[in-house]
């Protein structure tokens, strides 16, 4: 009898959970928060990896093979996900595009082509960098988890409510502690930050990339140097996965402060959860601008 109980417990532990794979660590962290111990979750891209370019490894297909749900960023950021899903030969998996409910920024008008660089025709896909959008993602995740495991839907709803409350409190806290960041001008390496900047009142003056996805050229760097000198820009911020070469060159010519920001959970020390992603970035920015925070 005891053996049967142990076996049943083991089986329910192994097979009762919803198996989830996500494209990025941010989505994985939200799934973990909402799903609790009723889900197992794996992210394909690492936190410190450029989510635009992920090499499609057979082992990723193997991870997706037994999954029940796949959450993707969408908006053409993780185009590689479809190859992984197809290659997994998983007939039952449900693929969810987390961008469906997002109010999208920078949606291009007119014809989009390669002369514009690596531009996304459905808008800027870095929407998870606004914590308000994190709530929309979490709502979608809770709905899909509840469909996959109706018996645990109450738990998912409780966790969703707690997550939303945590985000709301954090936004109030950040607005208070980091209010002096509002209106601060900075230059980003890549245009990953419109949602983040919009939320926290930062002003993106320029980008090191001449066009999205295009490596900074010498003429662009000269233009940036002149801009920093005339417009008294204090900070150049880049994603954790970019080379430090171009920012350091600019810093050597202008004395501008160069920083790395966490574009995803796990990209930098401290950014170990979705909430801490923002906390870490806001602290790094405040220190770079010489602003005191509580």
């Amino acid at each position, binding site marked *: 009898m005891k053996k049967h109980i142990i076996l049943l417990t083991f089986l329910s532990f192994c097979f009762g959970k919803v198996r989830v794979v996500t494209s990025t660590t941010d989505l994985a962290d939200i799934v973990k928060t909402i799903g609790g111990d009723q889900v197992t979750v794996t992210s394909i891209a*690492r936190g*410190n*990896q*450029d989510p635009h*370019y*992920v*090499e*499609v*490894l*057979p*082992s990723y*297909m*193997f991870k997706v*093979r037994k999954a029940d749900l796949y959450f993707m960023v969408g908006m053409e950021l993780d*185009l*590689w996900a479809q*190859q992984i*899903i*197809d*290659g*997994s*030969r*998983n*007939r039952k998996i449900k693929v969810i595009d987390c961008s469906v409910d997002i109010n999208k920024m920078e949606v291009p008008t007119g014809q989009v082509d*390669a002369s514009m660089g*690596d531009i996304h025709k459905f808008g800027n896909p870095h929407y998870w960098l606004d914590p308000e959008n994190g709530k929309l993602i979490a709502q979608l995740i809770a709905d899909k988890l509840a469909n996959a495991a109706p018996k645990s839907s109450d738990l998912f709803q409780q966790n969703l409510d707690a997550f939303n409350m945590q985000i709301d409190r954090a936004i109030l806290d950040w607005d208070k502690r980091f209010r002096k960041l509002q209106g601060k001008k900075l230059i980003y390496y890549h245009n990953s930050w419109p949602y983040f900047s919009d939320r926290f009142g930062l002003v993106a003056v320029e980008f090191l990339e001449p066009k999205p*996805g*295009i*490596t900074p050229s010498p003429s662009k760097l000269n233009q940036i140097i002149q801009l920093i000198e005339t417009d008294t820009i204090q900070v150049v911020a880049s994603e954790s*996965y970019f*080379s430090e070469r171009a920012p350091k060159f600019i810093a050597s010519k202008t004395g501008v402060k160069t920083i790395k920001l966490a574009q995803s959970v796990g990209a930098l020390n401290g950014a170990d959860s979705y909430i801490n992603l923002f906390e870490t970035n806001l602290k790094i920015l405040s220190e770079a601008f010489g602003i005191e925070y509580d």
Partner: protein
Amino acid sequence: MLQKLIGGLLCSGILFAQTTANPQFSVIGDLVIDQLTESPQLSSSGVEIAIQGNVNPFARADVYLHKHNDESPLELEEAVLTIERGLPFGLALRAGKLRPELGKMNKTHAHLFPFIEAPSGMTKTLGQEFYSATGIEANWLLPLPWYSNLSIGFLDTGIGSHAHEEEDDHEEEDGHDHNNGEEHLEEEKQENAFSSRWSHFFDLNEVNHIEIGTSYYADHEKSFGGADFKFKWRPNKYRSFTIQGEWIQFELGDEHEGKKVHSNEILTSGYLMINYQFSKAWNVGVIGDYWQFDLADTHGKDPSIFVGFSPVEESVVLRIKLGQVLHPEDDHNNEEKQLKVSVQLIWSLGPHKPHRY
């Protein structure tokens, strides 16, 4: 029978796939400058047109057309329906004109190589454009605790059949008997072939990966066995290190590539490549390849160094090759050493897929 089966599969894919969504088109072209150190020769390996898209939620179709030069017709390189997610037991099917899974390189299109030319050992074995034929290929993702894929193909023509056709074309141009060529092609239709590959992929850790595979091929008179491996270290988008190698032992029949060979001749071929990407745009590597006909006692090797530069992803790629070419051809006592410098500029228009490992 095989062609009817494949035709049926292709038709069923298309019939159930009425959609207004357009497939993706892309074009890849190149310019090659050979013998840069002597009298430069300009050429192109042609233009490849790819038409790709899903035909329904479970299947996709990939069509590759290739035009080699101004005179050559637009040739069908591949036209394959792939069903990856609709079948049970981890099965996938490919049907149509396809490059079967044979070793690591056969399925790779030339513009995806980090070097300019395919290793001569591989072209000696698989043909100048590598091996493609009309057939059906089943891929089974085995229920093992790691990625393990068994691929089995049944095809209508064997390796070297295209060489026959080219040979026949040359004969026709030279004014030789046309009927002879038709009879030859008639014979080739009977030459069904079997291909297989069993591959395994392991994550050593987050940034180190290794793939190993074994292949087997047989038609009515030839067969080969082979082994391949690839190790890759890729810590970020700026750096990677790859070692890739392949070895094939080919038991030939009476002829190979349209030429008579010793009865039961064995062709052994292989290559080893090391490629180091040291920045986002630059890579440098070395490749050594080797082939040998045992009974004829001839062999060849083409060691070379290659450099690649891709400033904007893979939309434009510049490759340079420095190689010492040893061409003994039929007379192995008369080895002629030659330094060859080649430059290739590749451009691509349209969406190109993220690369599989």
